[in-house]
């Protein structure tokens, strides 16, 4: 190397040293001791840094999709509710949430409170909102903001990740579909069914109106009913006229059979006005006037006949028809219908025919339409009844679309969600005086849904920020939230432009709003200098997210006046660190807190770092292996596969007994159900493996299972066969790598099974979760993230519409009675238990039902729970005051769940 090269190299080296000095000086900010004498780090100048995985930069609280983006947005938001360490709903003065008090009431169909949940038609949730909360920009958080958030989440145009719309709120579907009769299971055919329901209602209204016996029966619009009755008569006349035409066409055949010679005879015969009389069991082939011939009737029910014909017989039909053909009437008909030929001769015969026709028709028409009972009979027994029903339904349908059309011109058919209302109160739900008037949000849902409450913990983002730029904002700001049901009927100003694409795409999701969240959370968005304009370009910049203490946060806690409830540390930052470098970041001190995976290797490394402490807590979810009966129809084969899987391997090989636990039923170990059902109930000694699928290395046992299902081993290939098929399956690991807890277990199981006559391959698949959602995987390893409530409806109930039931092949199971009779029985029973458990809130009784339900799931042999691992939060103990962290963190109350209390050493 010549001299110049050496010079360049030394220059580069000195430059590097200079940079590194800059870097070292960067994160220091140790307190000089002034003001915060006892603190090692200055809370007013040193930003605290949490590590976060890659961000997408979509920090809109409504539309953030990734977990990390949601976390960034959540820092600036408060929710309606939160959860405590045991997974119960938490609210009130001590929690940073909007709800001061909540109440859940079960109601019957009439809206009265019921004590027995089984009688509940509705469940009503009421939330008293705190007064005086302010968003970080100083604007008050009011009930209008709460309604705005709800109406964004529940709008049909909302395409974000929140699934509040899946809760069966009363009137929600009506609002979303703008169809007053819509319900949860609405589709095209049920929409038509509803038009028929409305038609039936109109028919019922007519009947009720005509039925004078019950005067209290409410009838609809009287003018409409009269119009409908007139229409019924019109249709009835059309029907009897058409019958006449048919009778005329039938003369020949009737004459042949009954010796009828005249049209009117056939016509009356077909309308039961005249009957064939029988004498001594012999059919006499001529018609008789019914009343005149009463003496001949032997085996016909005269009473029924009278009733059928409105009880209004003309005593002398033949005579009447003869009388009608008077000279005067004939002349009248000739004149009226111009019945003359070219020569001017009158067509008397034709006139007579017409008179006979009209008389005959009028006889029947008058007999029915002349009385209320007759009209009711038309509706119930005549073709006119079903014709008018079709006509009414068509009218309703056309009206429905006309209404939608009108709505598109600016008017909503369903103004709001009838199950969401607000009112004011001065007392909490315990009857204590609140000292001031508070707004109460009331949400009514259909039936009982223990999970619903978790959907109502949504964050409350400011309407004035997120709706800005839309005329809907000003309208909502100027409107007064109704206080009476009558006012609610026409209220629709929630700051949301209903189902309006530009509103949802350009206003709510403008680049600025997606890039910079605003709310009432512990921190608010800032930039790297903490001054000047804060916008999407400097809030998240160069893989840093900048926050500053929200000066109004204290308004949400306590009585809302103690400013010391604001965040202790002024500046908070997220630093994007790739998941593979989390440990290095902790080690080199570039982040103060991070959440590495709690694997054996990581925990060992953390234990080796003197400046790092970590807190572990069980994650609220568990790993499992699923087998889809669609592909593995024989239950014995599914059980055989499970018998070959040693769930202990998932823990031994990947975590350790401290970092993960084995579980034997499809329910998180963190759930109170698991604790109640298996620690205090029948399984007080501890739950064990389900006996039918207990792990074994004995291949003879596994083969015996397979043989039970009728599989036989092909001597030449060594594979089991049945109906020309072999046991060829793919075990899929959900994810792109074999670095998965279940991988070794799958490999071992595949080896065992292949030695028994199976043909198993183990693969990894990045798209596994999508394939799973469409029921494309036969055997797979994945994980459930559990919800706080143990409800199993969505995942296991036979009527669930959720994606997850595709995993279990329910559709195929219910399509093949021969193959899946046994499974159907189990699923029916399981569904029944799930339904019962849903209607209960008493934990021990509910847990007992779930215990049976979970055993049924094991019996079904579609899911093998494998392990439940821990999560981990690691922090720099030199920097962070450990007493300000939640050391007893759980899955539902994290280490920094009271972030505003976080402080430095």
């Amino acid at each position, binding site marked *: 190397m010549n001299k110049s090269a050496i010079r360049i190299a030394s220059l580069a080296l000195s430059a590097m040293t200079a940079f590194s000095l800059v870097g070292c000086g960067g994160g220091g900010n140790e307190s000089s001791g002034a003001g915060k004498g006892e603190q090692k780090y200055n809370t007013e100048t040193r930003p605290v840094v949490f590590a976060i995985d890659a961000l997408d930069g979509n920090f809109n609280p409504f539309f953030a*999709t990734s977990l990390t983006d949601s976390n960034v947005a959540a820092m600036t938001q408060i929710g309606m509710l939160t959860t405590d360490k045991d997974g119960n709903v938490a609210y009130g003065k001590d929690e940073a949430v909007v709800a001061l008090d909540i109440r859940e009431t079960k109601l019957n169909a009439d809206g009265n409170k019921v004590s027995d949940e089984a009688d509940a038609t509705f469940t009503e949730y009421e939330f008293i909102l705190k007064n005086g909360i302010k968003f970080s920009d100083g604007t008050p958080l009011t009930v209008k903001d709460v309604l705005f958030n709800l109406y964004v989440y529940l709008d049909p145009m909302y395409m974000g990740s929140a*699934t509040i719309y*899946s809760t069966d709120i009363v009137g929600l579907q009506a609002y979303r579909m703008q169809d007053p009769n819509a319900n949860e299971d609405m589709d095209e055919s049920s929409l038509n069914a509803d038009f028929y329901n409305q038609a039936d209602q109109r028919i019922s209204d007519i009947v009720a109106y005509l039925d004078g016996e019950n005067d209290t029966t409410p009838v609809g619009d009287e003018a409409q009913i009269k119009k409908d009755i007139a229409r019924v008569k019109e249709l009835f006349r059309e029907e009897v006229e058409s019958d006449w035409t048919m009778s005329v066409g039938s003369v020949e055949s009737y004459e042949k059979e009954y010796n009828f010679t005249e049209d009117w005879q056939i016509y009356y015969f077909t309308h039961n006005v005249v009957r064939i009389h029988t004498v001594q069991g012999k059919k006499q082939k001529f018609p008789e006037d019914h009343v005149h011939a009463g003496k001949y009737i032997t085996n016909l029910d005269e009473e029924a006949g009278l009733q059928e014909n409105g009880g209004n017989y003309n005593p002398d039909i033949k005579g009447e028809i003869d009388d009608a053909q008077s000279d005067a009437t004939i002349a009248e008909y000739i004149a009226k219908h111009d019945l003359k030929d070219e020569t001017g001769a009158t067509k008397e015969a034709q006139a007579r025919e017409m008179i006979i026709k009209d008389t005959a028709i009028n006889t029947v028409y008058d007999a029915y339409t002349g009385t209320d009972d007759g009209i009711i009979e038309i509706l119930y027994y005549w073709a006119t009844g079903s014709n008018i029903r079709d006509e009414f339904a068509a009218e309703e349908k056309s009206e429905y679309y006309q209404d939608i059309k009108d709505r598109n011109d600016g008017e909503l058919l369903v103004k709001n969600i009838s199950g969401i209302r607000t009112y004011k109160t001065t007392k909490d739900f315990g009857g204590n005086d609140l000292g001031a008037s508070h707004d109460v949000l009331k949400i009514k849902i259909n039936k009982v849904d223990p999970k619903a409450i978790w959907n109502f913990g949504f964050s409350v983002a400011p309407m004035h920020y997120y709706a800005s730029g839309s005329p809907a904002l000003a309208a909502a700001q100027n409107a007064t939230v109704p206080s009476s049901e009558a006012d609610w009927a026409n209220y629709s100003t929630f700051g949301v432009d209903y189902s309006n694409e530009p509103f949802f795409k350009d206003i709510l999701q403008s*680049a600025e709003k997606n890039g910079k969240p605003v709310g009432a959370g512990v921190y608010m968005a800032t930039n790297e200098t903490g001054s000047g304009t804060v916008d999407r370009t400097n809030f998240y910049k160069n893989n840093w997210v900048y926050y500053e203490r929200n000066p109004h946060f204290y308004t949400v806690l306590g009585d809302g006046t103690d400013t010391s409830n604001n965040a202790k540390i002024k500046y908070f930052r997220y630093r994007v660190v*790739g998941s593979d*470098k989390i440990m290095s970041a902790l080690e080199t001190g570039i982040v103060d807190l991070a959440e590495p995976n709690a694997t054996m290797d990581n925990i060992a490394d953390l234990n080796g770092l003197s400046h790092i402490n970590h807190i572990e807590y069980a994650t609220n979810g568990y790993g499992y292996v699923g087998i889809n009966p669609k592909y593995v129809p024989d239950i014995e084969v599914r059980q055989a596969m499970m018998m070959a899987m040693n769930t202990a391997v998932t823990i031994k090989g990947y975590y350790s007994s401290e970092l993960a636990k084995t579980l034997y039923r499809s329910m998180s170990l963190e759930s109170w159900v698991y604790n109640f059902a298996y620690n205090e109930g029948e399984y007080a000694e501890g739950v064990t493996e389900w006996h039918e699928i207990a792990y074994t290395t004995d291949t003879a046992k596994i083969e015996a299972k397979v043989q039970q299902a009728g599989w036989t081993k092909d001597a030449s290939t060594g594979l089991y066969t049945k109906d020309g098929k072999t046991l060829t399956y793919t075990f899929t690991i959900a994810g792109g790598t074999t670095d998965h807890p279940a991988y070794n277990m799958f490999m071992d199981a595949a080896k065992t099974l292949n030695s028994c006559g199976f043909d198993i391959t183990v693969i990894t698949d990045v798209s596994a979760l999508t394939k*799973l959602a469409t029921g494309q995987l036969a055997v797979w390893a994945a994980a459930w993230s559990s919800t706080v409530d143990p409800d199993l409806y969505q995942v296991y109930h036979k009527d669930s519409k959720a994606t997850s039931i595709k*995993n279990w092949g329910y559709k195929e199971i219910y399509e093949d009675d021969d193959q899946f009779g046994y499974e159907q029985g189990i699923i029916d029973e399981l569904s029944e238990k799930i339904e019962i458990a849903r209607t209960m809130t008493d934990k021990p009784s509910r847990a007992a039902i779930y215990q049976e339900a979970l055993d049924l799931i094991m019996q079904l042999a579609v899911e093998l729970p494998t392990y439940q691992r821990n999560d981990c939060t690691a922090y720099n103990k030199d920097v962070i005051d450990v007493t300000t962290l939640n050391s007893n963190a759980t899955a539902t109350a994290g280490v920094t769940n009271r972030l505003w209390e976080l402080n430095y050493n």
Partner: protein
Amino acid sequence: MFKYIVERLLLSILILFGVSLILYIVVWNMPVSYLETIAYKDPTVDGAKRLQELKEYYGLNGTMLQGYWGWLVNLFKGDLGTSFKYNQPVEDVIFKNMGVSFGISLVATVLQLVIAVPLGIKCAVNQYGKLDYIVTFLVMIGISFPTFFFANILIKVFAMDLGWFEIGGLQSNLPTDATGWTRFWDMIWHLVLPMLTLVILSIGSWVRYTRTNTLEVLNADYIRTARAKGLSENTVIYKHAFRNTLIPLVTVLAGTLPSLFGGAMITETIFDIPGIGNIAYQALQAGDIPFIMGYNMFIAVLTIIGILLTDIMYAVVDPRVKLGD
């Protein structure tokens, strides 16, 4: 030449159209679908229904050709669409994150040239000499290293063990009152390792290229003539040979345009640098159709411009070449 450029540009439109169609077919058939991921995220809701709603919302409920047509129509309206993943207009995401990638690549390219060209010439002059062997050996090592491997070695040695640099990112945890100068140097400090990675791994090919070209030039008749005239070796090499060596180099340089703006996907990802390469990598993994289309078309346009520039530069620096005549 003007006519030639116009012809080439018109041809480029046709090429871009073909490229976009092929891209769309590939992207449409990717195993990852962003909409499916979102729709099926919560297994306790009716994912199929949600997917349908999402597809309608994003106008992807038709066939692949309908989807492509929709994309093309929007493109002609100057709309590249909105990225699913980043929920921002595709062009915004590209331009917002392009700066840092361009900065890194530009500096790295300049450094590569500043180091590689003199080294290449030296090696050529001292062909089969000690320096030639040493440099060839070292640059071959550089060429052979995979990016992720070399980058991680740098991080391990210089960030983890020696503590001279941070393990990644663009900025330290600077106080709010840090000066602009401090922030600037802090960023440069963070860029040392990524740039070192890029320079060391790419320098080899430039050295080899310069060496080969120089050797070719040195064997040319006019060099022999120059030497015969009795010019000093330095004048022969740096005045006569050097200029001619540059001709092929300049043309190749024009071809590096896409890599300047397109970002260094692997390097940026390893060093957690929010450049366009890193952003594109994540979008690719997520199956973000609008972004992948937009980004790849951006690269395609740059590539076509790069090739065109190469041809034009060739004509500019080499008077013997005439275009379009």
